[in-house]
């Protein structure tokens, strides 16, 4: 069974249609990259998958593990193993990072019928993962994302992913704002978490992240639809030639919003 099946999805926000017939299937063990110019619908796709409020689906369906994902609240999706790495991670002053992450992990464990972990067990779990993301341990004592640098925020997202061990991880522009070192650390973390029974959907504007996270499939999103799919070499082609050659034909038939 496929992990994720998106069929003819039409979705938008604030009454504006942004995704206009998107179809995509992801199987366990696969890494997919969705690329596209600004405004093509990349972040809307991430928002719809995670269940962000205000986004509405007008047509099509999204099956996750064979059931209709759109019926579930964001927290239920998360407990079922869906994870969104935010493009702009939210700062939550006053909420301690360890407390937050432990609470999240325990929500997932409760959902799966596993015993909750206590503070000491949690520290054991998180220690290696902190090292994997090359983060300082004092970050755990700080408020969630507060005062983190741009790079730290993105690495902290992947740290959360490492703790929550999702079945499907959606990385929304995780590379934006990262310098080359941070990019390598983030990619290394993501690669480390790849398994035969999970999958990753990497949403990005630039090809450079894909030098580090090597996708099995690359899809080009334009005006709310996938206009081309291919292997990893498609990403290189895009890097060399830009998006214009691909979207030229489609621009002529742009649908009014």
């Amino acid at each position, binding site marked *: 069974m496929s992990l994720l099946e998106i069929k003819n999805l039409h979705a938008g926000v604030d009454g504006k249609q942004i995704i206009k017939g998107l179809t995509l299937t992801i199987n366990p063990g696969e890494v997919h990259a969705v690329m596209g110019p600004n405004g093509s619908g990349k972040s809307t796709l991430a928002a719809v998958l995670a269940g*962000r409020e205000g986004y509405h689906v007008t047509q099509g369906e999204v099956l996750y593990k064979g059931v209709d994902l759109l019926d579930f609240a964001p927290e239920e999706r998360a407990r079922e193993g869906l994870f969104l790495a935010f493009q702009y991670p939210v700062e*939550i002053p*006053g909420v301690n990072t360890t407390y937050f992450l432990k609470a999240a992990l325990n929500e997932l464990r409760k959902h799966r019928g596993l015993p909750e972990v206590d503070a000491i067990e949690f520290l054991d779990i998180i220690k290696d993962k902190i090292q994997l993301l090359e983060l300082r341990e004092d970050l755990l004592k700080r408020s969630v994302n507060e005062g983190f640098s741009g790079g730290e925020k993105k690495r902290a997202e992947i740290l959360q992913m490492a703790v929550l061990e999702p079945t499907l991880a959606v990385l929304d522009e995780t590379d934006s704002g990262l310098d080359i070192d941070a990019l390598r650390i983030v990619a290394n973390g993501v690669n480390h978490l790849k398994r035969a029974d999970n999958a990753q959907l990497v949403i990005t504007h630039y090809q450079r992240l894909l030098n580090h996270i090597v996708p099995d499939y690359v899809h080009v999103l334009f005006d709310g639809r996938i206009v081309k799919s291919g292997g990893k070499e498609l990403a290189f082609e895009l890097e060399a030639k830009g998006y214009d050659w691909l979207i030229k034909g489609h621009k002529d038939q742009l649908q009014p919003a």
Partner: protein
Amino acid sequence: MIQTAQQRPAAASDPFVAAFARVEQARAGQPSWLFPLRKAGLARFAELGFPTLQHEDWRFTNVAPIAQLPFRPLLASSVTQLPSNFIATLPMASLAGPRAVFVDGHFAPALSNLGNLPKGVKVASLAAALVDDAALVQKHLGQHVRDDANAFAALNAAYFQDGAFIFVPAGVVVPEPIQLIHVASSREAGATANLRHLIIAEAASQSTIIESYVAAVDAPYFTNVVTELVAADSARVEHCKFQDESTAAFHIAALHATFGRASNVWHHSFALGARIARNSIRTRLEGEGLECILNGLYLPKGNQIVDHHMLVEHAEPRCASHEYFNGILDDHAKGVFHGRILVQRGAQKTDAKQTNKNLLLSDTATVDTKPQLEIYADDVKCTHGATIGQMNDESVFYLRSRGIGTELARRMLMHGFAGEIIDRVQHMALREVMDKIIWERLEMNPQIAERK
């Protein structure tokens, strides 16, 4: 009886003035230099009367319920009425360190513990210090109070009998917090404790001072306190005020503080109790390169009013002042924040910031927030911001996207909103106690507590 031409309509302040002669007799042992200070306070109070909503500094807080109280200055302590283990039941009592306890405005030596003070450090009742440390007290007492037409401070000058005197000599580090705990124990309406604290932290000293105001009764008493705080050059002072008065009571407090060159001062105000609570905070930054943080949290519910009214005066260059005040308001509660930053002509490179954030848990809670910048220098960085609203949707979504349900997400954010303020407490043991008190108080609210 024939009325004379001099007669005027009775003012609410009259009984407060009339009690003076009677109270003055009870203070026979006090030094003579105090008398002019008291007389001046009385005259100023008689002149000002109680503030009304027409008074700009009081336009959001109606103190008429205080003016209407029968004025009963507490001339003696009723310490004997207090349950013997009362102090031990207070969360603050778990903190180690010296402790001066006051009951109804009067020092209670039997409940205090002032042994083992570091060398040269003095913690005593002000009434005793007026005699024992006359020169030092005379030099400072009343000298740091800014005359900004605060009738309550004037009333305090006229009537105060006791309070605390704290002196930390130059270069001395006091690792444990020095606690002043005030307990209200009078059930009489209008029973008034006029407390006066004088805190002197000499150059390069380090100390943490906690003022707590708690109640052993649920009654319409009145606490009227003025604290004068001096942090000399390079002193590091953390001053924490915790107010958990009876919700039938009135609490009017003023902090008048003067900070010296390169000093570091944290002032925290945790306002939980009282029917009407007002904190006037007046800080004068009169040395170069100092940093001060004014940090506060208020959690009114029912019909409570909590008012923080600040003036931060930058008089010298290269000083930083940051104000952070968060409020969580429920029911018909009202919050008032008035933050005025005054940057004097010479105070270049001032870095002043103020933030006031409010969470409203009910449709009937209200907040009046008034940030104000008054700048006479041209090379400064001053910012202010205020928010009033419900929970941030983006934050709720972020937590939910990690598997945390809406209810728990709301609770976490609420605690976090309070935690932002608590986390600025520098003294770790104090921070832990405050965290526990606030956490438990928030969990008592059915809107926040876990729904079982």
